[in-house]
């Protein structure tokens, strides 16, 4: 039994990483209706910017804030320069654009900061949390920040005019335009917010997985899986999905014999697909009714 609770705790700790990423994924999905494959790379790039600032002597929280502003502006710039012109292109062409963006960011980061692994500091320290060896204070801090973000997003979308406008622009662009919402800028804003959330996720994840240009690949896959599992329309679902995927992954690795690290991912994904077959819109997603 103790093994079981410990594994669940460890699962929650890794799940926090996925939850963070999934939140960023859902954020951009709300704004643009696509999954952004370059999301992880954007987060990685932001994290590198933060690291570089600290190398230049900026204190942690200063670097953190500058990175957030940089990522927000960067996300908007990417949307304005690269994806606004593609707004009328078919969806699949946009997806190809995400893949291109992925390749560009990954390769540029590799050129600037090379592929050696770098240490990234944590503001929460890394001593055991409440006497448990399985969760460090950093991981507890990460869970705290994720939940806070979730709350902030909830209030933003629920109670501000801007949040309402963004939701309207995402769900029914034409009607939103008719009531005077600048839908094109709402999309840009969505990109900016998603990039900033991604940056927070990146900076929280980096102390755990270490900083290098490919650090986000695995995290992004789990983040997608978590977002889809929780339902792409729901930020709460994304966070719950993240924790569930983390727990799944740990339990599968412990209790199913013969599952090494290699098979963890396929089995976790298979479980998620099984859940989706039963609930096609995800655990918290709203089913979409189609009109002929």
């Amino acid at each position, binding site marked *: 039994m103790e093994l079981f609770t410990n594994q669940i705790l460890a699962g929650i700790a890794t799940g926090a990483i996925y939850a963070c990423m999934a939140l960023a994924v859902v954020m951009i999905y709300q704004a643009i209706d696509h999954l952004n494959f370059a999301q992880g790379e954007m987060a990685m790039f932001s994290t590198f910017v933060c690291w570089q600032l600290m190398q230049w002597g900026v204190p942690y929280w200063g670097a953190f804030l500058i990175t957030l502003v940089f990522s927000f502006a960067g996300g908007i710039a990417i949307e304005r320069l690269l994806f606004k012109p593609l707004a009328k292109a078919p969806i699949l062409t946009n997806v190809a654009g995400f893949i291109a963006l992925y390749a560009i960011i990954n390769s540029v980061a590799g050129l600037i900061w090379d592929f050696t692994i770098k240490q990234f500091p944590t503001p929460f320290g890394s001593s055991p949390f409440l006497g448990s060896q399985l969760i460090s204070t950093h991981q507890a801090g990460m869970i705290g920040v994720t939940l806070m973000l979730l709350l902030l997003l909830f209030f933003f979308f629920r109670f501000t005019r801007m949040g309402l406008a963004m939701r309207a622009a995402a769900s029914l662009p034409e009607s939103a335009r008719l009531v005077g919402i600048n839908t094109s800028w709402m999309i840009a804003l969505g990109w900016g917010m998603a990039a900033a959330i991604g940056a927070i996720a990146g900076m929280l994840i980096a102390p755990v997985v270490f900083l290098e240009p490919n650090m986000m690949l695995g995290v992004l896959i789990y983040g997608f899986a978590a977002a889809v599992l929780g339902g792409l329309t729901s930020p709460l679902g994304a966070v719950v999905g993240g924790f569930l995927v983390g727990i799944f992954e740990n339990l599968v690795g412990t209790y199913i014999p013969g599952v090494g690290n290699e098979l963890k991912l396929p089995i976790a994904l298979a479980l998620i697909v099984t859940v989706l*077959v039963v609930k*096609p819109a995800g655990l918290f997603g709203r089913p979409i009714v189609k009109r002929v």
Partner: protein
Amino acid sequence: MSAVQEVVTEAPAVEAVPKRAMTLGYGASMVMLVLLIMAPVFVKNFIIFQLTMLLIYALAVLALNILTGGSGQFSLGQSAFYAVGAYTSAILMEHAGMNYALTLPVAGVVCFGFGFLFGQPALRLSGVYLALATFALATAMPQLLKLGYFEHWTGGVQGLVVTKPDAPFGLPMSQDMWLYYFTLAVTIAIYIFSVNLLKSRSGRAFMAIRDNEIAASAMGIDVALYKTLAFGVSAGITGVAGGLGAIAVQFVAPDGYTITLAISLFLGMVVGGVGWLPGSIVGSAFIIFVPNIAEGISKGLSGAVFGVLLFLVIFLVPHGARQVAIVAQQLIGKLKRN
């Protein structure tokens, strides 16, 4: 909260392509055919090998095109079907001593079955959810092939070495050239099959489902049957491509069939034009040659150069090679009238 349901007018993920626009005209087909037959006469063996790979990937892109462009289902799992085809061919050749040409239909049938079965659970999913499910398949496949349980047949991590066939009947041709013509023959046969499939009753059913699933079912189309059938056919063709690939590369190993391959095939489809079958070969050329060109321009930044080139292509022609073909056709039409 759950009582509130979003209602949207359905916009199909893949826009409608008129049936006639999915193929090439008679004249253009003939020119293409002559070019493909003449090509290997003038070049070195290594380039012949690349041309063979071009045809093989074109087949795999074509298969994805039938699934996505034809029936509107999205797949990131084509590399799994490709791997199953490659392994089927390799195992039959190396363990059962079967003739290489005979292993291809077997690979096709095995993959058809696999795709058809996979299509069953995939029926419940669409859009990104389907993408995730197929993606799961693609990430699981290399790991499954590495499993110790199958190692006796698959060779585990090391993979299997396949012998390259000689030209039959004592034809005076190098192995590479023979394999090129063999692949070309298979490709043409499958292309003709695909064109006719899309022109047939089944093809029209695929397209009806792509354009509007609810309307299609109201017209009496068995949506579940045709969606799984599209998966099966697509997987079968990908399997044949995989088998050919195994013979051409003379080697199969789990790490050759990762998600990267599936993403490449997807890019090939977009560059070639979704739903335009002849575009498959253009897309295949893009995914084979452009990474090499990018490497040639800058070694350290090859990924960035590739990304920029890809952006250029989708900026200039968001609908892929199909758009170029349509513009060319209109130009020729204008010239003829003058």
